[in-house]
């Protein structure tokens, strides 16, 4: 079966000449359709760079990325909502850009906001919402892009533990309902095991996939469950090993 995303021999460098920094080296990776893959690595390991390349914000220096005609949506650690638009208008914007008719996109935005539990906050401006709520509006806006592939760059990294826990449930539900393919970047091994079908351990300088873990735990999972903790321990050990051998 054709994968949803194929990353083939991708290397990426920043800067030029002597100052050149190799951020990614020969990364090859395939995501199945409707797979939830988590990418864990130390900060500065090039995880975000990889997401930006898959989102086509930059072209890779070498190698190829193929999404087989599917759109991608990218979520950042900060919600990056447009402060001059209401929650509903933020969600509508990607549809406006695709020239969806006004009444249709209004209806769709309403549905997406209630899908993330924010039906009552359509008219709120971003500054009136909490961090977790903003991130959910951003999720609704990403879903409004009608993208089969969701790229998430530590989206819950700045949230408190309770909110993050609840958003994990929410994301899992939306992922299943919509058959999304998700590439989720985090530096938290436990979060990766909680969410992922597969956890990819990323090494630093240059970034590449060092190891991968298949997570066959039944869903819904809980962050505190002993199985999640045990697997997260294994992933964490592997991560530490990478950091220690590559750290200097």
């Amino acid at each position, binding site marked *: 079966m054709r994968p949803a995303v194929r990353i083939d021999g991708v290397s990426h460098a920043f800067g030029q000449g002597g100052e050149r920094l190799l951020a990614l080296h020969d990364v090859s990776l395939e995501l199945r359709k409707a797979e939830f893959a988590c990418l864990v690595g130390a900060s500065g390991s090039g995880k975000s760079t990889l997401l930006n390349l898959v*989102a086509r*914000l930059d072209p890779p220096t070498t190698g190829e990325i193929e999404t087989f005609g599917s*759109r*991608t*949506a*990218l979520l*950042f650690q*900060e919600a*990056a909502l*447009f*402060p*001059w*638009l209401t929650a509903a208008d933020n969600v509508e*914007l*990607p549809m*406006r*850009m*695709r020239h969806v008719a006004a009444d249709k996109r209004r209806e769709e935005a309403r549905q997406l906001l209630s899908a993330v*539990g*924010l039906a*009552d*906050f359509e008219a*709120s*401006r*971003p*500054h*009136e*919402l*909490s961090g*977790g*709520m903003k991130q959910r509006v951003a999720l609704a*806006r990403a879903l409004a*892009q009608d993208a089969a592939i969701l790229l998430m760059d530590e989206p819950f990294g700045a949230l408190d533990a*309770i*909110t993050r826990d*609840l958003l994990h*449930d*929410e994301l*899992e*539900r939306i992922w*299943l309902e919509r058959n999304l393919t998700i590439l989720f970047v985090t530096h938290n091994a436990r979060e990766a095991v909680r969410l992922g*079908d597969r956890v990819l351990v990323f090494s630093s300088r240059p970034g590449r996939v060092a190891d991968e873990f298949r997570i*066959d735990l039944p*869903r*819904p999972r809980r962050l505190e469950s002993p199985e999640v903790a045990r697997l997260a321990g294994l992933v964490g050990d592997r991560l530490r090993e990478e950091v220690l051998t590559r750290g200097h």
Partner: protein
Amino acid sequence: MATEPLRMPAYGAGELSVLDKLETTPRPARRFPLQVWRGAWPRLAAVAIALAVWQAVVLSGWRPDYLLPGPVPVLRRLAADLTQPVFYGAMAITLERALWGFGLAIALGSVVGAVVARNRVLRAAVGSLITGLQSMPSIAWFPLAILLFGLTEGAIGFVVLLGAAPAIANGLISGFDQIPPLLIRSGRAMGASRFQLFRHVLLPASLPAFIGGLKQGWAFAWRSLMAGELLVIISNHPSLGVRLQLARETADAEGLLAAMVVVLAIGMAVEILFSSVDGTVRRRRGLA
């Protein structure tokens, strides 16, 4: 693998919405008259103080009454002037010039600002020139303007345009500079074309700074216009500037000051208009 339907724990959405309620504070209802009063009283107090200082200077006897009349005779004169159609004619001519010149300055300043802000080479080439033009006293343009256009409306318009446009362009440029890069990346990641990025992200993001530029541009335009109306006097075009000049020539101090009050009032009224738009925009974005 998740192939069978999931039963999510019962708390889920309910718990989230409880959190949402805890995390948002209801907006305090604003009482309209109270709000108006809160904005108005400092201004009224300032006017009162200014009038008192003026009256004090007059009472000190520093200059005789016929050269420096106090606020009471001047305001009485103003009230009388305001019943005369001629006065409104003068105001209309001045306002029409302001509207034309400032309107053109907005058009030119916006286009130049947008083009320069988005083009690195142009930015390096003319960025500092625009700032230089902004600090150039507009009255220095008049000799050239009169050479080029003669004593015509064109000369006045030219100087008003050159006075206001650089401030407006600079406002837009600094607006573009202050856009958080994350918002631009967010727009690009949702598949915006170059034009869509400009229309839906860059322009609205730079709006507060652009309004700041308009405000400053207006101040420059109004100043240039007054200078112009004193220097370029066109017969049968009785503007506010002409009234000022005539009042001086006929030693009509009350008429002179009455006209000055009007000049000040118009300048302030437009400034207040821009400030209130500015305040609304900022409040909406949580900046104020």
